């Protein structure tokens, strides 16, 4: 049952820790509920009025930067895009994003996420970097048909935190990196196929580790169909034609 305004004030239970490997302690706060209040608003209110030591991160506050990704009632979400009224009644459980080392309280380090991101060589590599001509990507190409909705990644790390495979395999690339590799490999202008295929084909960290759980797709705040990217990439990698290039 969603939270009712009449039920205010509201309880928020935050898993706090002084860092990775240090004991996590749940701490409960009571916050008066306001209409349209988001989890991020509640965190600010706690920090300003009750506990200045509470640590969390945010930047844009409008769901564009992905900085405020945390676990809300066990589900990785953006704190700034999660209205408290939409959550189930009862204490709201806030915890740092899973699968990433905690810096303090709700702030995690995204270093492991970007280490994997770098492994797939995310930068665009054209055939002729000096060329001034515009490349013509056919509207009928697989890149034009299947990738537009997959380009909105804000590297928030939510898919990384939600991924069940990532929780058991530290070497796994993770959904965001694989989606980025898919975009580059499908891009008919990009030529860096072999460099990207090496990490993607790795036994322990590559694309074949995905168990098609759809956790990444279910959690992605931008609605990117990450599992679709992964399964499309798997099929393309098995295809003799592999990737269309200009």
């Amino acid at each position: 049952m969603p939270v009712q305004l009449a039920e205010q004030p509201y309880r928020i239970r935050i898993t706090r820790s002084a860092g990775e490997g240090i004991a996590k302690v749940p701490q409960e706060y009571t916050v008066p509920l306001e209409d349209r209040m988001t989890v991020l608003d509640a965190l600010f209110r706690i920090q300003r009025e009750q506990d200045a030591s509470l640590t969390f991160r945010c930047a844009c506050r409008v769901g564009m930067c992905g900085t405020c990704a945390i676990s809300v009632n066990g589900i990785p979400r953006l704190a700034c895009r999660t209205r408290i009224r939409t959550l189930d009644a009862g204490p709201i459980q806030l915890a740092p994003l899973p699968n990433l080392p905690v810096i303090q309280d709700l702030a995690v380090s995204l270093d492991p996420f970007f280490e994997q991101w770098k492994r797939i060589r995310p930068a665009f590599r054209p055939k002729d970097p000096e060329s001034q001509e515009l490349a013509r990507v056919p509207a009928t190409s697989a890149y034009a048909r299947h990738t537009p909705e997959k380009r909105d990644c804000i590297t928030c790390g939510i898919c990384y935190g939600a991924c069940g495979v990532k929780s058991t395999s530290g070497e796994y690339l993770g959904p965001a990196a694989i989606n980025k590799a898919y975009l580059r490999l499908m891009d008919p202008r990009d030529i860096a196929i072999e460099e990207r295929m090496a990490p993607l084909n790795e036994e322990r960290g590559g694309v074949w580790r995905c168990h098609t759980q759809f956790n990444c797709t279910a959690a992605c705040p931008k609605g990117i169909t990450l599992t679709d990217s992964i399964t499309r990439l798997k099929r393309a990698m098995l295809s003799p034609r592999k990737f269309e290039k200009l």
Partner: protein
Amino acid sequence: MKYLRQFSGQTAQVVQRVSGVLLLVYLFLHVRTIHELSRGPEAFDAALLTFRNPLFKTLELGLFATVILHALNGIRITLIDLGIGQERQRRLFWVYSVGIGAVIFLAGAIPLVLAAMQRS
């Protein structure tokens, strides 16, 4: 329940793993029973008699449910890997694997139970 709905794919994966292990346990039991044939028809009949009690009849229904769930979910996973029904994967699990699976289970389990009641 909200978590299960949102993360149906993970639920489906856990169901597939658990049902797979259960079927593996059953296969060992099955091969062990069939092996009794090598000791003659009497030994095999004696082994089969072990399973003619209410506990094993109930487990038989459990086996039937496990086989259906594992088979339908396996087909679902294959379809998804082939790029079919990705956008409807939640519905595929709850309606196709669980819903249709339940209908097939009832269609098979009711005659089994009725036959067992008539015999007893």
